[in-house]
C-alpha cells in the first residue's frame, strides 16, 4: 500500500491507476507528512488525558477557591483562600490527616511484610504449574466486589463473629470496629496489588545470581539481604505506591468497619454529600494529592517508577 502511495502515478499496462477519491488523497497526504500523521494519531489520547481527565480534575479543584452559602447551599464564585487556610490551620484536619497517613503507612508495611514471603515462594520455589495456580489464588479476591469484602470483614470482626469465636477460647476478645479494624480490612483489600509487583520483580532476579551468591559462601539470609533485596527494592516501592495511595483516599472501609473514626476521604464525602460544601471538600482533597506528590517525588529517586 505505502509503496503504491508514495510512487509517482505511472500508467502501467493492465493495471489501471487507482481512482482519485478523497480518501485516497488523504492517505497520500498522511503518508507524505509524518508529523501530521503523528499529530492526528495523538489527538485522541491527548484529548482524553488533557481535557477529559486533567481538566475535569482541575475544574473540581478550582472550586477550592470558591465559597458556598452554608444555609442555602449555593456555590458562589468569589475567589479567596479561606478554605485552604481552614484546612491548613484547623485542628480537625491536621488530626485526621495524621491519622490517615498513619493508617496508610501501617497498611503498607503490613502488606509488604505479608507479600514478601508469598511472592518469594511464588517466584522462586513453586513449580511452574503451582505458580499459575498461586497467581490465580492471589488475584481471586479481586473478582469479588469491594463492598462485599468490606461488609464481610464487618461481620467477621463483629461481636459473636468469626474472630470472636476463634479467640474467645483463649480468653481473647474481638477488636471490634475502629482504626485497627480499618487497618486489617484495608490490608486485606490491597494485598494483591502489593504481591503482584513484588512477584514480577522477583521473577526478574536471575536464579544464577542466587547460585553465585551461594557458591561464594553466602548463607540464605546473607543472599536475601545483599542480593535479592537491593534488586527487589524498586518493586517493593512500586507495590507500596498502590497500597499507600489507595488507603489514603479510602472512605468506604472506614465507614463500614471504622466505628466512630474518620479519615480524609470521609471528610471529603461528608462535605460533598452531607454538608453540601463542595469548595471545602475540594480543599480537603488537595491534602492527599499533595502527600502523593511528595511521596512520588521521593520514590522517583529510587528508580522505582521505571518498574511500574
Amino acid at each position, binding site marked *: 500500500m505505502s509503496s503504491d502511495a508514495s510512487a509517482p502515478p505511472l500508467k502501467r499496462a493492465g493495471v489501471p491507476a487507482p481512482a482519485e477519491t478523497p480518501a485516497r488523497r488523504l492517505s497520500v497526504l498522511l503518508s507524505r507528512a509524518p508529523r501530521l500523521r503523528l499529530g492526528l494519531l495523538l489527538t485522541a489520547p491527548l484529548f482524553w488525558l488533557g481535557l477529559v481527565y486533567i481538566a475535569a480534575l482541575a475544574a473540581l479543584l478550582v472550586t477550592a477557591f470558591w465559597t458556598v452559602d452554608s*444555609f442555602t*447551599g449555593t456555590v458562589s464564585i468569589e475567589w479567596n483562600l479561606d478554605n485552604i487556610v481552614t484546612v491548613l490551620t484547623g485542628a480537625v484536619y491536621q488530626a485526621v490527616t495524621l491519622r490517615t497517613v498513619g493508617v496508610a503507612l501501617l497498611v503498607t508495611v503490613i502488606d509488604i511484610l505479608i507479600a514478601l514471603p508469598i511472592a518469594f515462594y511464588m517466584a522462586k520455589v513453586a513449580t511452574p504449574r503451582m505458580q499459575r495456580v498461586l497467581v490465580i489464588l492471589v488475584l481471586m479476591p479481586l473478582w469479588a466486589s469491594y463492598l462485599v469484602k468490606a461488609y464481610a470483614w464487618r461481620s467477621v470482626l463483629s461481636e459473636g463473629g468469626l474472630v470472636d469465636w476463634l479467640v474467645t477460647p483463649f480468653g481473647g476478645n474481638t477488636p471490634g470496629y475502629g482504626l485497627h479494624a480499618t487497618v486489617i480490612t484495608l490490608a486485606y483489600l490491597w494485598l494483591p496489588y502489593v504481591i503482584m509487583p513484588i512477584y514480577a520483580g522477583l521473577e526478574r532476579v536471575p536464579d544464577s545470581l542466587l547460585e553465585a551468591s551461594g557458591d561464594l559462601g553466602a548463607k540464605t539470609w546473607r543472599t536475601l539481604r545483599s542480593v535479592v533485596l537491593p534488586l527487589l527494592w524498586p518493586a517493593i516501592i512500586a507495590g507500596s505506591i498502590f497500597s499507600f495511595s489507595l488507603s489514603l483516599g479510602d472512605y468506604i472501609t472506614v465507614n463500614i468497619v471504622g*466505628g466512630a473514626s474518620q479519615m480524609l476521604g470521609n471528610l471529603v464525602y461528608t462535605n460533598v454529600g452531607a454538608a453540601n460544601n463542595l469548595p471545602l471538600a475540594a480543599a480537603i482533597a488537595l491534602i492527599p494529592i499533595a502527600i502523593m506528590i511528595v511521596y512520588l517525588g521521593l520514590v522517583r529517586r529510587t528508580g522505582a517508577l521505571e518498574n511500574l
Partner: protein
Amino acid sequence: MKSTTIRRPAAVTGIAIASVALLAGCGTTSAPSGGGESVEELGDYEGSVSILAWPGYVEDGSNDPEVDWVSDFEDDTGCQVTSQTYGTSDEALSLMKSGEYDVVAASGDATLRMIAGGDVAPLNTDLIPNYDGIYDFLKEQSWNSVDGEVYGVPHGYGANLLMYNTDVFSEAPTSWDVVFDDASANAGKITAYDSPIYIADAAMYLMAHEPDLGIENPYALDEDQLAAAVELLKEQRANIGEYWSDYLKSIQSFETGSIVAGTTWQVIKNSVPEGTPVDVTLPEEGVTGWSDNWMVGSDAASPNCAYAWLDYIASPEANAEATEYFGEAPSNDAACEFRSEGQCELYHAGDEDYASQIWYWSTPIAECLDGRTDVECTDYAAWTTAWQEIKG
C-alpha cells in the same frame, strides 16, 4: 413509530420553552426566600413525575411485590413515577439543587434550607383536597411554612427514640443519661445519629439537666449554648462505638450486641430480628423527632402531576400504607382506619400529648427560633463545623 416521530418535535419545543422559562426565572428570582408564586389552577397531567424521597416513601413493588402504592397512582392519573431515594437530609438538599425533581419529601432540618435556596415553590393548598384531612398540629409549622405561605404537605412524623439492650438494662432507662453522663458504663457500645442535627439531642438533654444555660429550644442555640452541647458530645465521643446514618448498619450493631444503647427510629426496632434483646423507650427529657413534608420543586417540569401526587399521598389510604410501611405516625386523621390493627397506637398517631414531647427537627438559623432577639443564634453551618470537630 409514528407517534414518536410526531411527539419528538413537541418534546423539543417543550424543552426549549422550559429552558427559556428556566433561564428567565434564574434572571429574575433574587428574593432570598421562596421559589416564586404558587400556581392558581391546574392543567393537564404531563405523563410523568420525578420524586426525591426517603427510602420507603415511594414504593412501586420493585423492592417487595407486596408493597406498592405507586401503581395505583400511575393507573389513576397516567403520571409515570420515577423516584430517587436519599440517605440524609443534607444529601437531599444537594440532590434538590440539580432541579431535576418535581416533588421532594423532606424532613424539618432540610425544609427551611430548601425554601431559602429557592428550590421549592409555595403551595396552593386549595388544589390539594386531601390537605383538609391533615392533623392541624402538623400544619403551618415553622418548618413547612414561611411568612404565612405553605410550602409542605405533612406526610408522617416520628420520634428519635432511645433503643437499649434488655440484657444490659434490666429496666427501661428513664433518662438519656445512659448515652451522655453515664455512657462510660458501656464505653464503646453507645451509638448516636451521624448528623449535625444530633447536636439538638445534646441540647435537649442540657435543657433538662443544666437549666442555667437557658436553652429554650434545642434548635436555637447561641454560641455559649452550642459550646456546652459540643462539650457534652465530645465527652460522649469517647464512649461511642459507632455513629449511624445507615439504618441497616444500626440494625446489625444492635443485633450482634456491638451497640447496647443509643438513638433509633421505631422502624429500626421493627426491623430487628425477632428474639433480639432490644426495646425502645421515650425518656423523660423528651425526644427529638421529625415531621416530613411533601414539597414541589420550583423548577418542576410536571407541576400538575406533582400536585396530583401530593393530593394522592395525603389521602387516607395512601398515607396509611406509606407511613405504616416506613414505621411512623400518619399525618391524615382518617388514615388510621386503613392501617393494620394496633399500628396507629404503636406510633401514637394523632396523640397531641405524645407529639408535644417531640422537638421536631428544624434548621438552626441565625435568627433564633425561640424568639430571642438579644443574641444571634448559631446556624446550620456552625453546627456542621462543630459536628466535624466532635467526630475528630
